[in-house]
């Protein structure tokens, strides 16, 4: 039985990891910590759940709306909000507030579009793999494989892809990248769209695993962010490690201390990690 806790912990960790990967790419591209990431994931999950509720509806409708919505929101955040704001000399908290405002706009839009009720998406694969007393849904296996595949793809893209390599240059030193004549804006756009796709995928994968509502986004955003900081930004695989760690701590505290302690444990974790892991710490600036 304890084994099933491990299995669900890994599933959850993979999910946090995907959200953190979204943060990671967005941060690389725009130097902003995009707290609205949780809202993209939630919206995508609700869209997928909404359109897959009717078993006769084509699956592609739900998939397309989930990816479409997440990419659209990601693009809006960068191109319509952060970029115009960065042109002016603004303080960092201007960006923080804009992102928080956007988060609530998306929350309420989701409530209006999909109803203020919980939704569960259709599993991408039916059935379950039975190993002894343990049953693992094929969907969950698929989610794990898709998550690992995404990480591998992003890592390969950053290492070898044309825009991926440029993205590293843009993220490391924007002024230098500009001076070298790199198409900074286009590189950013590609990364922002990739972020949207990752959030869309995370939403689609999680929607059949857990009932979502229009208020699910805040905990996604918080846990994804903690995973990002915990893992650091050294390699594209770091968010996955961070996600697994957060999930393990969460599950262990719920199992051995009790569910009531979760908020206290997370607070302690945040303060400890943020304060004593300088390599995970970076001063976030909305472009200078």
């Amino acid at each position, binding site marked *: *039985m*304890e084994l*099933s*806790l491990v299995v*669900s912990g890994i599933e*959850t960790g993979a*999910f946090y990891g995907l959200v953190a990967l979204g943060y990671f790419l967005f941060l690389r591209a725009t130097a902003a910590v995009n707290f609205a990431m949780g809202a993209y994931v939630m919206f995508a999950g609700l869209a997928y759940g909404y359109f897959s509720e009717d078993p006769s509806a084509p699956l592609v409708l739900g998939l397309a709306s989930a990816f479409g919505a997440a990419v659209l929101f990601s693009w809006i955040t960068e191109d319509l909000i952060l970029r115009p704001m960065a042109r002016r000399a603004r303080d960092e908290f201007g960006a923080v507030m804009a992102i928080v405002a956007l988060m609530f706009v998306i929350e*309420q839009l989701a*409530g209006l579009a999909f109803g*203020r*009720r*919980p939704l*569960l998406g259709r599993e991408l694969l039916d059935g379950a793999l039975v190993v002894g*007393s343990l*049953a693992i849904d094929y969907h969950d296996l698929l989610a794990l494989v898709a998550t690992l595949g995404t990480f591998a793809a992003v890592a390969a893209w950053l290492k070898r892809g044309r825009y991926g390599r440029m993205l590293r240059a843009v993220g490391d030193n924007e002024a230098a990248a500009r001076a070298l004549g790199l198409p900074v804006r286009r590189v950013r756009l590609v990364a922002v769209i990739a972020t949207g796709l990752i959030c869309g995928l995370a939403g689609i994968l*999680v929607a059949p*695993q*857990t*009932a*979502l*509502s229009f*208020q*699910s986004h*805040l*905990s996604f955003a918080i846990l994804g962010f903690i995973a990002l900081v915990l893992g650091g930004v050294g390699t594209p695989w770091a968010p996955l490690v961070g996600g697994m760690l957060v999930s393990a701590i969460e*599950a262990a505290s*719920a*199992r051995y201390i*009790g*569910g*009531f302690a*979760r*908020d206290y444990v997370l607070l302690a974790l945040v303060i400890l990690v943020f304060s004593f892991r300088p390599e995970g710490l970076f001063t976030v600036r909305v472009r200078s």
Partner: protein
Amino acid sequence: MEAAKNLIRAAALVAAGWTMLGSVQAAAPTGDPITIGVVEDRSGAATFYSSESVKSVKLFIDMINHGEYLFASSAVGTAPGILGRPVKAIYEDDENNPNLTAVKTRRLLENGAQIIFFVSGSGSTLQGRIVCTEQKILCMAPTNVSAKIVQPPNNDYIFTITPQSETASAVYVEAWKKLGLTKLAFIEDESATAKTVADAYRKAFEAAGLSRVADEQVEASARDANAQLLRISAAKPDLIFDLIQSAPSSANMYRSAARLDLKLARWGTNTITAQPKIWQLAGDAINGLLVVDNLAPDNPNTNQVKAAYQKQYGADAPYVFLHSMVWDALMLTKKAAEAVGSTDGTKLRDAIEGMTDFPSSYGQKGNLLNFAKERHNGAGNKGNVVVQFAHGSPSAVWDVYQPN
């Protein structure tokens, strides 16, 4: 779009009016409308059930205006409207935020409301009822289960209809005694409502000599409840008592329980029966669950109101106890207003405090509501019905025990 919707609604109303004219020959209500102010939650955590209550407020006020009282005509007569005047409702959204409830309630009064219905969360009602006392206005919280609402302070003008945990707990105790179950495991979420209800049950069960071997909390947006269920399973209880209020968490918990293949008796509260979305999401995982609910399939009163409700909202619109509670609250209000000939809050309150044996649309057959000066919750033992989930819905009345 909105205009078209209104047009359709108006046409439906006219059509409904004509059919009604055929059956009930009563004068249409005239004069200034009597205004009921409704505090609802349109955007917060209570939306899941608040929106259901609002649907029934809308329909049942319509029925009052057409003099359609079904079984309740034995108590309220057949005259349409209240005091011969039409009834209308105005609404305010308090976002289930207690900081806003008092001011939204006052706003309703400012806009002409003479009576207030709270259909948002229990916390909202606790903070909003202060306005009822200050302004001496009759307030109804038909769907809230917290017993604190009708306890001092500021309880002078507020009434509730739903059986409170105090009476429901006696039913659980009796039922478990019959089955020989003594060791309980509580599972709840971290919402204020869950905490309030759970505290009341903890107290009642302790007094009854039952032992609690686990108290687990699930976070409101938890993905699953595996860790909590494992802790419960390790504590070796006789049964799990589910007090989770949030529909997504609740559904996730039943899915976790099914996944872990827990072989434990499972009992829950009427929060689950109030939210059909939970059963739909939980699927087969919920079968076997026993709940002290407030609806019995063989209660003719319930079935009359249910038929009217499903005629309006479609045959597959789930009918839950919240709808019956709103019905009873409206009928009580009409009866009281006509008994005292006004909408004066103090007179209405005194009238309701004097109501006994009022026919109810929920509970077991023959359930009656009784109020008194120190008793602002009208429910009795027959308001509770033990039901069991089968085929994904609370469809079977439990044959082992029913309260009397």
